[in-house]
């Protein structure tokens, strides 16, 4: 069988793809920034926080890490409104990504905190810092530096995972390609273009995160 490749439609639908890429970038931007913040708070609780809080964070982390992102998304978007929480699709997607990345980054960052030499905590205490001050000014940045490559990989994984938000009609790159292939009847070519765009996004995101690490961490060996 001879298959006739056809990419003539691409020029016409470019704006749709560009719009989809913009939404995907917005999703990962919000997801990464807030998700890592949530991860830092949770990691602090699990490593150094009050004992009574630990089981709650542990349950949250285990629950998120052992269920599919798609189900978390459906639960937030379809399930929560019955409790009176009305969310737009985009809000639900943002929340799902923050909650998801929060759990994964918690475990990664915790490993970074727990690798901190004891002397660092003692040094902070000897300067009359409170434990929280020690964490904030002494421990946190080197801990993040230690695990930055792993955290960056996880952020890329969450970005790729965001393709399922198209299922609750968030108009991301996957949604755009679903739309385009329903118009041009060129499913394979359309998804090929979308897949390669995701690949480019993943490579670019990786570079950006390396750059962020280069800027926020002091350039010395810990």
């Amino acid at each position, binding site marked *: 069988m001879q298959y006739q490749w056809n990419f003539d439609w691409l020029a016409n639908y470019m704006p749709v793809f560009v719009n989809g890429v913009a939404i995907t970038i917005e999703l990962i931007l919000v997801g990464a920034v807030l998700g890592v913040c949530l991860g830092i708070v949770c990691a602090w609780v699990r490593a150094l926080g009050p004992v009574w809080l630990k089981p709650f964070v542990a349950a949250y982390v285990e629950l998120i890490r052992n269920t*599919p992102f798609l189900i978390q998304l*459906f*639960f937030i978007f379809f399930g929560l409104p019955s409790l009176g929480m009305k969310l737009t699709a985009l809000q639900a997607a943002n929340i799902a990504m923050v909650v998801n990345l929060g759990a994964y980054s918690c475990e990664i960052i915790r490993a970074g905190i727990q690798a901190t030499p004891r002397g660092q905590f003692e040094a902070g205490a000897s300067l009359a810092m409170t434990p929280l001050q020690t964490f904030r000014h002494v421990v946190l940045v080197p801990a993040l530096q230690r695990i930055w490559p792993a955290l960056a990989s996880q952020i890329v994984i969450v970005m790729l995972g965001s393709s399922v938000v198209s299922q609750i009609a968030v108009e991301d790159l996957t949604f755009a390609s679903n739309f385009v292939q329903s118009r041009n009847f060129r499913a*394979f070519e359309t998804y090929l273009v979308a897949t390669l765009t995701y*690949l480019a996004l993943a490579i670019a995101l990786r570079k950006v995160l390396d750059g962020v690490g280069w800027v926020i961490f002091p350039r010395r060996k810990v």
Partner: protein
Amino acid sequence: MAQFTVFDILRNLLLATQWTVVLSIVSFIGGGLVGMLVLFARISNRGWLRLLGRGYVELFQGTPLLMQLFLAFFGLALFGISVPAWLAAGLALILWTAAFLGEIWRGCVQAVAKGQWEASASLGMGYFQQMQHVILPQALRVAIPPTVGFSVQVVKGTALTSIIGFIELTRAGTVVTNATYQPFLVYGLVALIYFCLCWPLSRASQILERKLNVAHSHH
């Protein structure tokens, strides 16, 4: 309107769960076999094979599983075969799993000390003898915990096959929700079933890691 009890809902969900389990097992075993090929390509002495292996891993780890499912679904159709959803789902999941397992195992093989290669070479062993008797047995021990851990990702990955129309747990959740109008309860139960499948695997991975690490520290 028909009334559904929690028992009715749970029974329907559990019936679909068996397909999640079957697909997970098939993908994991199939992915393991293809993953072996990826591993051998990645650690080959031939440059072009290494490049090929690396390209494969980059491609499958750098693109969404959902896109791979779409491409398998519509790509197989190009060959003029009408593809059932389970075939496209199985194929995409196997190729995706292989990329991750191959890469995990590569790390484990390369973690074996270089002296082990040299020592076995000095005993006159060939490549496959070295692999069989010296390298793989040691790499296997390091490889077990992350491999078990990755099986959790496979189980969760099967949820995406609902999108191309394979009827498994997630799909059943959607169908049951549409019949009962109780999304909170139904998706809660679906999440709970996934948790019951995945959590033991996660725990096993952690326990194995601790056990094998202790064994390792005796060296």
